[in-house]
């Protein structure tokens, strides 16, 4: 590096922001150049003077942050609702994309496989819902209670399943299907939507016993 190039870099040598190579080049030059040593001293005085002025100057008002927060609130309130609705969706998509790209191939494959399984199960449930399973000799109900399709966990014991059925006052009237789905009838009528929802919540919260619970009638 030439003397003139060194001189031009000295302000940033003094403010200590040069990279390692530049700094060592300058230090080697300073060992031999008296003019540059004097320049560094002068620049150090200048830096101290500028910092003195800056540090002793009055700072901003203490309530400035509150004013900024008020501006932000006003901005958020004024934002069009559509924009508010759209932003979290975009963020979820972006997070999803980031996760997918960052995940190892085996994780992505496992995820894809699970997704296919869930879709297959969903398709079967929908099919069974629209084509009820009927046999002439099958159990029938003398009630008009709502019908659930439920899949139990493989590890759930018979006793746990029985207790769960008692809790919802339901009985198995069909199944298991090829996908391990049982048809369960409860006392609550299909039009008692709140009660049906409560029973489904009981089943869905009991994840130790129940894998899936849907109302099919």
């Amino acid at each position, binding site marked *: 590096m030439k003397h003139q190039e060194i001189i031009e870099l000295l*302000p940033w040598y003094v403010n200590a922001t040069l990279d390692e190579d530049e700094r060592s080049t300058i230090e080697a030059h300073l060992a031999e150049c008296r003019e540059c040593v004097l320049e560094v001293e002068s620049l150090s005085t200048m830096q101290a003077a500028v910092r003195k002025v800056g540090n002793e100057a009055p700072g901003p008002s203490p309530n400035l942050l509150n004013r900024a927060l008020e501006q932000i609130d006003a901005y958020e309130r004024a934002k069009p609702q559509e924009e508010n609705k759209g932003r979290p969706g975009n963020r979820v998509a972006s997070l999803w994309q980031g996760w997918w790209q960052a995940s190892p191939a085996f994780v992505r494959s496992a995820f894809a496989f699970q997704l296919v399984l869930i879709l297959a199960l969903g398709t079967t449930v929908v099919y069974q819902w629209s084509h009820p399973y009927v046999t002439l000799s099958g159990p029938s109900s003398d009630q008009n209670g709502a019908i659930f399709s439920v899949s139990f966990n493989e590890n759930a014991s018979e006793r746990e399943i029985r207790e769960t059925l008692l809790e919802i006052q339901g009985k198995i009237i069909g199944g298991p299907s090829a996908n391990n789905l049982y048809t369960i009838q409860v006392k609550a009528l299909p039009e008692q939507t709140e009660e049906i929802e409560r029973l489904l919540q009981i089943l869905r919260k009991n994840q130790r016993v129940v894998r899936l619970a849907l109302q099919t009638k």
Partner: protein
Amino acid sequence: MEEDTGPDPALSWIERIAEGDRGAFENLYNAYQTRLFRYLSRMVNDANLAEELTNDVMVAVWKGAAGFKGQSKPSTWLFGIARHKALNELRRPRPMTVEVETASAVAASETGPEGIADRNSVRQNIQRALEDLSPEHREVVELTFFQGLTYQEIAEIMQCPINTVKTRMFHAKKRLQEALRKRGIAGETL
């Protein structure tokens, strides 16, 4: 370049601001408000306006955090926004005003040599020496010595080539050295 002392916390604050995190916004605000305010004060020479612009910068950060992709350092991004806002403000026609501080500095410098020994007077003399520089020269001096930025960052903020930054600094320091010498300011008087 500055030594790497771990990831800049401002990066994660900006990321969280993009998610609407007000706590992260307050952290970033507290970390930068004084630096931005002083930089803007020097740019527009008006403390009230500098406060207003400081908030404008931070609100712009709130609005634009999702668009910050980390290609530049957070400080470069923030000072770039601040500079843009200050230049826009300076382009608007405004009535001539004299800052109280500047006015008192002028008065102090005209009261005689006894004032020079005074602590405030030293500061006012330095202030005046800085004010005698052209806006571009003052800005490069301010960003280098007060804000402690690299010449690459300054070039990015000022949107000019690196060589222009170096040339501006070369001329600015000559004028400032001369002005400080004239006012009898040496290392030991600071």
